[in-house]
């Protein structure tokens, strides 16, 4: 027992002191929790149109909820920061992707066209067609475009970081990307930030 503890034990009822501490601790913790701004860090690594949605939906929604948001775009994810977004989807090797017509009568829209990989791989322009159909579906279902979600992220002051190493690796130049990029950084800069986040996701 330290000197302070001895003094306190002599002058105060320890049970009362415990009670006071518990109450004070609860109040302080509640105060801190109320003042705490939640934060989200995302590592976005994929550059297809379908995989562009999860990071941008989560980041823009967190921004709307008033959270501090940062997204680190690395490898193919860097594609999502280009000035001109030309994102495509590839149904090849993805058995979970439904292949449905976005137009025509309902019975036609309901058919899931199971196209074998070998056929998809052999038809030139198959991915262009699939991308076109997906874009059409997105529009008709009232789902936001990637451009719109990215703008919402920027409006909510989400920090969008680009991985400098990937820029060098893929031979990109910085002017191919949107000017709002918060920084050209590496893993060593992003990790300490992610460490302090309440939510950290790798997508």
């Amino acid at each position: 027992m330290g000197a302070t503890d001895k003094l306190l034990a002599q002058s105060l009822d320890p049970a009362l002191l415990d009670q006071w501490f518990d109450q004070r601790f609860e109040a302080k913790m509640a105060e801190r929790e109320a003042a705490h701004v939640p934060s989200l860090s995302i590592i976005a690594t994929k550059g297809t149109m379908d995989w562009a949605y999860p990071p941008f939906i989560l980041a823009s929604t967190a921004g709307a909820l008033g959270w501090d948001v940062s997204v680190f775009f690395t490898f193919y994810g860097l594609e999502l920061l280009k000035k001109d977004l030309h994102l495509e989807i590839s149904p090849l090797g993805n058995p979970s992707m439904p292949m449905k017509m976005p137009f025509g009568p309902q019975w036609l829209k309901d058919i899931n066209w199971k196209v074998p990989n070998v056929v998809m791989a052999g038809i030139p322009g198959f991915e262009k067609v699939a991308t076109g159909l997906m874009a059409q579906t997105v529009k008709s279902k009232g789902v936001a475009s990637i451009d719109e979600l990215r703008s919402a992220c920027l409006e909510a002051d989400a920090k969008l970081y680009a991985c400098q190493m990937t820029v060098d690796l893929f031979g990109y130049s910085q002017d191919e990307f949107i000017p709002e990029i918060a920084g050209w950084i590496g893993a060593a800069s992003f990790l300490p930030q992610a460490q302090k986040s309440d939510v950290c996701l790798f997508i």
Partner: protein
Amino acid sequence: MSTNATQTLDARGMNCPLPILRTKKALTDLAKGETLAITATDPGSLKDMQAFCKQTGHELVSSSEHQGEFEFLIRKS
């Protein structure tokens, strides 16, 4: 839709998370205490608006559903 709201937002036909993003945007243009009436068709918006208001501190004055449309009234805090 409530006619006595300061501003209205038509979020019909929009899917997650657009109703929330548009609501947030519309609220920034309002002054404290003013109200926003939102109409949406996204069934997820019912829970999303509750969560949005709980997180941001705005008051969800009312929420209702009829004939597949959801109506919300939010007072800016």
